């Protein structure tokens, strides 16, 4: 293992990791240019490299891209990647009140801690943890998605019915196109372009970014508050103090991220939302969440960065990729002649451990690079006039929606959903429940239909859905989340009769 550490610390690998983190961070910060795209584009270049160096570059890009999503989430309320959805909930309010630099520094610190925990889990606990991934069947995925949807109660901040309306709209949007199981064609109105469904990334960009853009144009005040004292430094000491006070939140969020990352297909968005919900549920002042609570940013970023290491556990041990970038990296492993499986950690330990240490080093390199890039990103956004910022953001939304599949129809969907998002915001509907329904709807439906069919074939549907230990655990967590959000609302209404 020490040999692998030394190999990872070689000058060449360090430089590759640094370049990967910088490139990934910049790509992740641009809405629509995803970690998957960055990793996929660079895979062919790694074929000529030493296997461990190639993997370090890909891992570093992936790590940087997941973190980079926080910048646009905080500074323009647009999650650069779906993993940063929860970051925007408190990050953007912080930026609006003039604490954008603090939010960026907190997101960097949270990501470093989360990424480190995920990478350490991969290093020391990969074979036993991979068994968790094997325990998840369709029904567990169904309940996991329902658990994710139950977070609407937490996210809707006292307006549960409006949150429910948003969630239902998201679920209906997720039904557009061919059904995930069975192939029913639904709500396409004869448009073949809609057969593939509503694309998530353009929808995400539209629902989060276009309303901000419209508000930016119609309101005379500055996009973000600018405080003279806040543009001087990183506010590192202040952020570090907040992190120390929030240490349980950081560790819990990192563990949630690692755990969710291990479950294939759950991903950073679910991890961030679950960690955010837990942070809010256990906070002393839960009503501060949504109005710029630093703990919300910390929780989301620690969790989504931890999914990187967590996601590699089933990828390396079982050959089951947890996320699309994991799948691409798995392909790169196979091209390099590396066969995944439990024996990988014994037969080709040098490559695996060098890669894991490389991932750890890339995570640590995120601290200086993230702080520096974040500081300049913040200063740029607060100093650029609206006449330049609005066209630039509009351009990035168009590029982001188009670039995923080089499809102009996706741009139209992005704009249409963006205008819809702005209009429904006037009547109190927020984008997060809609996005949650859109992302989790297909997971819930596929899990439900498959579970229903398997349960029917075995003659025990009730046992199939309610008799498995993991399902019971997730159902209990869902009940706790719903109950605690109800308790919280009663507490608020008692203190605030209005």
């Amino acid at each position, binding site marked *: 293992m020490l040999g692998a550490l030394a190999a990872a610390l070689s000058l060449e690998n360090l430089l590759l990791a640094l370049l990967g983190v910088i490139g990934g961070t910049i790509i992740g910060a641009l809405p629509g240019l995803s970690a998957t*795209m960055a990793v996929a*584009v660079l895979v062919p270049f790694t074929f000529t490299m030493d296997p461990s160096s190639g993997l370090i570059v890909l891992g570093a890009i992936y790590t940087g891209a997941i973190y980079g999503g926080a910048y646009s989430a905080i500074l323009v309320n647009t999650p650069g990647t779906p993993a940063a959805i929860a970051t925007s909930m408190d990050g953007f309010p912080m930026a609006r009140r003039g604490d954008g630099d603090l939010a960026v520094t907190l997101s960097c610190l949270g990501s470093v801690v989360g990424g480190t925990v995920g990478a350490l889990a991969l290093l020391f606990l990969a074979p036993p943890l991979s068994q968790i991934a094997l325990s998840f069947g369709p029904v567990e995925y169904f309940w996991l998605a329902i658990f994710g949807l139950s977070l609407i109660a937490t996210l809707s901040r006292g*307006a549960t*019915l*409006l949150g*429910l*309306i948003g*969630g*239902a*709209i998201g*679920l*209906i949007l*997720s*039904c557009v196109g061919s*059904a995930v*199981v*069975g192939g*029913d064609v*639904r709500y396409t109105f004869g448009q073949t372009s809609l057969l593939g469904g509503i694309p998530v990334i353009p929808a995400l960009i539209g629902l989060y970014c*276009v309303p901000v*853009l*419209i*508000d*930016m*144009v*119609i*309101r*005379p005040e500055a996009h973000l508050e600018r405080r003279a004292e806040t543009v001087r430094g990183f506010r590192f000491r202040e952020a570090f103090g907040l992190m120390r006070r929030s240490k349980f939140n950081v560790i819990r969020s990192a563990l949630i991220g690692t755990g969710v990352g291990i479950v294939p297909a759950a991903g950073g968005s679910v991890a961030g939302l679950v960690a955010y919900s837990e942070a809010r549920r256990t906070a002393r002042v839960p009503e501060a969440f949504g109005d710029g609570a630093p703990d919300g940013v910390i929780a989301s970023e620690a969790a989504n960065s931890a999914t990187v290491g967590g996601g590699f556990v089933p990828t390396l041990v079982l050959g089951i990729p947890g996320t699309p970038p994991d799948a691409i990296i798995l392909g790169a492993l196979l091209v390099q002649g590396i066969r995944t499986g439990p024996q990988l950690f014994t037969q080709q330990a040098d490559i695996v451990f060098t890669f894991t240490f490389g991932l750890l080093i890339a995570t640590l390199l995120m601290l200086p690079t993230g702080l520096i890039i974040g500081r300049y990103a913040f200063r740029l956004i607060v100093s650029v006039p*609206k*006449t*330049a*910022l*609005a*066209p*630039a953001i*509009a*351009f990035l939304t*168009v*590029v982001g929606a188009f*670039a995923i599949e*080089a499809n*102009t129809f996706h*741009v*139209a969907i992005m*704009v*249409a959903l*963006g*205008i819809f998002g*702005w209009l429904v*915001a*006037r*009547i*109190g509907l927020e984008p997060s429940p809609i996005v949650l329904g859109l992302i989790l*709807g297909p997971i*819930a*439906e596929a899990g*439900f*239909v498959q579970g229903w*069919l398997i349960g029917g074939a075995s003659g025990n549907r009730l046992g199939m859905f309610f008799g498995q230990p993991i399902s019971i655990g997730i159902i209990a967590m869902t009940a706790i989340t719903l109950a605690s959000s109800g308790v919280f609302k009663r507490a608020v209404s008692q203190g605030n009769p*209005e």
Partner: protein
Amino acid sequence: MSGLRTRWRPLVASGLAIGIGVAAILPTPQMSELGRVFPMTSGIIAVAAGAGVLLQTLLRTPPVSISDTPELWRAGLLATTLLLWALVLELFGFVVTSAVALPCIAIIARREAMSAMTIVWHAVAGVVLVGGFSVLLSEVLNVRLP
């Protein structure tokens, strides 16, 4: 009348939810037994939540946290520009549509007079942005640009 003025937002939300829910439920008889479960459930949730908001609004006035938005004409112009951009992107191409749309959005966002130098800087920034992304997408990321 003042009650109606303070309650219009939840009433619209309720109407929208019931409308979308009913529209989602109506085509479900044409779907397969398993294929209709989620659309039907989602539609019922939307209708039920909309009805809940309606009842809540009629029984008491919920606090409305959204302030009125000034200068809605800018919102209309921006939305129209974005829609037109999306619709003609395939026809006129990425660079041409961007070159037209970016100055339009800058004008919509403009509140104060700009000096000639500011306009030149904005133009240079626009050229760098569009040119940079054109190269990034077409040459580096191999994305086919319209």
